[in-house]
């Protein structure tokens, strides 16, 4: 009896599953999300698959951002690339230069007949992934921007008013001194130092990060991170590090653990840190806009995004591209976006999703979640605040990390360190230019 039932099961499963698989066109989607974000992506895919019966999206996790990009590149060389690949913002220039490996999203959308209006996307988000002709090359998926997280309890413990004005670095400077005097061991900590304190810093103060409009208007771009504004900021931070007011914890988001454990008073981190901080922090916190130096550049301009976009890879059947188009269209629909924004703290990518979130009363219930949206969209982006489009940028960030560490440890002055970034980084830009000639 037992044997028979197992046999029946085997027969039925071999009979049923191929039918289900062949009836629908498979679209493979490689991404870099684990944990809570991984679950949310899986839910989106599941929802899309059940909403129609023509296409099946198969999602797989391929490691962190760098590893996912590498997996995609290696797969392309082997002819096994997925239809949709998640690439972090740093890899954008690499993908844009790889004509023949990718199919622009606007073309995919036009061919699939799916609903697609480029103007519906928020400018500051879309700008990062749009060609100079205004065509969207990849679909923004998860976009965030840096904000200032405040541990209100730590302020009170140090005898500092948690509602004090923290909009400028001048005020933050005074506050850090007061926090330190009040006994705080960790007044300020940061995540993603290059992204926040150089890339976003430059955009926010409307000063160039690199020539040629930060690389948007040509591969022959050169780094300009050794400008006066950047050096002044890093000099101040180096002094804070020396005085024990700024605690350095690592190149990625290691500082998040310190902040969520309640050890640090201030934390500069992505707005997408919201999910983690909300679930772990056992203290009162709030979100403030990223501070700026009063009187430097045109601050506050707008901050730029971090995160990833979805690229469609070349070398597949037309039917599969239709499926990819349908899926991307589903992902940018207002309901899906609004839910994603509210669950994760990532920015909504369409104005409609932003309005829907506002109308739902989410911002009133979750105070501070709107800060990032306002900070990004309050002003129209300039040539300095559209984003960055630099080749070998992951590697250049590595150089920036090294040189920033030299500042924090007191080995180099901010000027020497940033001059060194320029002399070390420019040859990488030249090699990228040569590789993509």
């Amino acid at each position, binding site marked *: 009896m037992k044997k028979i039932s197992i046999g029946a099961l085997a027969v039925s499963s071999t009979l049923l599953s191929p039918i289900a698989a062949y009836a629908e066109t498979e679209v493979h989607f490689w991404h870099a999300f684990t944990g809570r974000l991984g679950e949310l992506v899986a839910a989106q895919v599941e929802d899309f698959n059940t909403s129609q019966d023509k296409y099946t999206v198969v999602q797989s996790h391929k490691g962190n951002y760098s590893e996912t990009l590498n997996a995609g590149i290696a797969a392309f*060389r082997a002819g096994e690339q997925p239809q949709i690949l998640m690439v972090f913002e740093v890899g954008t220039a690499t993908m844009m230069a790889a004509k023949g490996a990718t199919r622009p999203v606007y073309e995919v959308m036009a061919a699939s007949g799916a609903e697609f209006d480029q103007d519906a996307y928020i400018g500051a988000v879309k700008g990062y992934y749009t060609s100079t002709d205004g065509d969207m090359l990849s679909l923004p998926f998860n976009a965030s921007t840096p904000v200032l997280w405040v541990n209100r309890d730590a302020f009170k413990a140090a005898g500092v008013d948690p509602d004090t004005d923290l909009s400028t670095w001048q005020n933050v400077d005074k506050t850090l001194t007061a926090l330190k005097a009040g006994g705080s061991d960790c007044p300020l900590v940061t995540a993603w130092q290059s992204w926040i304190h150089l890339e976003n810093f430059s955009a926010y103060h409307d000063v160039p990060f690199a020539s040629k409009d930060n690389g948007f208007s040509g591969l022959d771009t050169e780094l300009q991170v050794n400008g006066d504004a950047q050096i002044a900021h890093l000099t101040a931070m180096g002094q804070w590090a020396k005085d024990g007011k700024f605690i350095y914890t690592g190149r990625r988001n290691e500082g998040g653990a310190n902040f969520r454990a309640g050890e640090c008073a201030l934390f500069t981190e992505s707005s997408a840190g919201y999910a983690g901080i909300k679930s772990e922090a056992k203290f009162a916190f709030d979100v403030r806009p990223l501070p700026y130096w009063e009187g430097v550049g045109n601050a506050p301009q707008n901050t730029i995004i971090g995160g990833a976009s979805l690229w469609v890879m070349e070398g597949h059947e037309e039917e599969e591209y239709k499926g990819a188009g349908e899926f991307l269209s589903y992902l940018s629909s207002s309901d899906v976006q609004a839910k994603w924004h509210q669950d994760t703290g990532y920015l909504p990518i369409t104005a409609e999703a932003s309005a829907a979130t506002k109308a739902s009363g989410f911002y009133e219930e979750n105070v501070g979640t709107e800060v990032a949206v306002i900070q990004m969209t309050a002003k129209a982006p300039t040539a300095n605040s559209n984003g960055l489009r630099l080749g070998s940028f992951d*590697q250049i960030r590595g150089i920036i990390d090294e040189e920033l560490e030299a500042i924090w440890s007191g080995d180099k002055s901010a000027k020497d360190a940033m001059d060194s970034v320029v002399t070390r980084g420019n040859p990488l830009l030249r090699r990228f230019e040569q590789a993509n000639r």
Partner: protein
Amino acid sequence: MEKRVFFKGWLLPLLLIAPQILVSAVFFFYPAGQAVWQSLFIPDPFGLSMQYVGLGNFKYLLSDPYYRASFFTTGLFSILVTLVSMIPALFLAIVADRLIKGAGTYRTMLIWPYAVAPAIAGVLWLFMFNTRVGVVSWYLGNLGYDWNHVLNGSEAMGLVVVSSAWGRISYNFLFFFAALQSVPKSIVDAAAIDGARFWRRFWTIVLPLLSPTTFFLLVVNVVYAFFETFGVIHTITSGGPQQSTTILVYKVFADGFVGQDLGSSAAQSVILLVVVGALTVFQFKYIERRVHY
């Protein structure tokens, strides 16, 4: 005089070595050849186009002061790993050799760490020395020492050296222990009767007899430090702070797989190939001469 033995026929010997040749060809000669070929180009990551640059990649690398500094870092790292993994191993082997009771248990436990993969060893040590929650850094903090390998290059180097050497102590211990067992007891006993104390016996009899093993381990450990410590570096420091733990192998990875600069990465592999070739020649010349079979 060397003895040589000849066999008749050539088909059987050829068949017998064919699998080894095939494996070498597929897993060594083909990829190595590809690396040499690629090192002459600057390709784009997707393999869509290539720019021939001749020896440009090598010129670019050797004119980069950070690449040259990486040689020094690698040398320092290798010497430290070798010393830290060999000296305690020799000490433990001597102590275990003198044990009468429970020697088997000690031996087994001393060999255990060898079973831990480098990347996992890296994570274990990183946990102990984590600047925020690490047990060791907490005790150091209580003693008034502010451990911070995230910013202090020497501390980072110390940590990756210890993490890399730790599992290696077991490996070296095995070889030293076996070598100690083969030291003829009669010579040691004769010296003892003549009145030589332990250290004198060790320096004048045991250590010289261990020299073939020591030389073998020296070279093998240097090669290990050069090529197999990637996992430790990747998990603990990623080459930082600044470039204080960026060894050559790590740079191949960082430039090739983070930077997508395959030309430079291939050129670095070729340079490493030359380095390991030189090391192997050195190994054969030295060990062949010193080892008495």
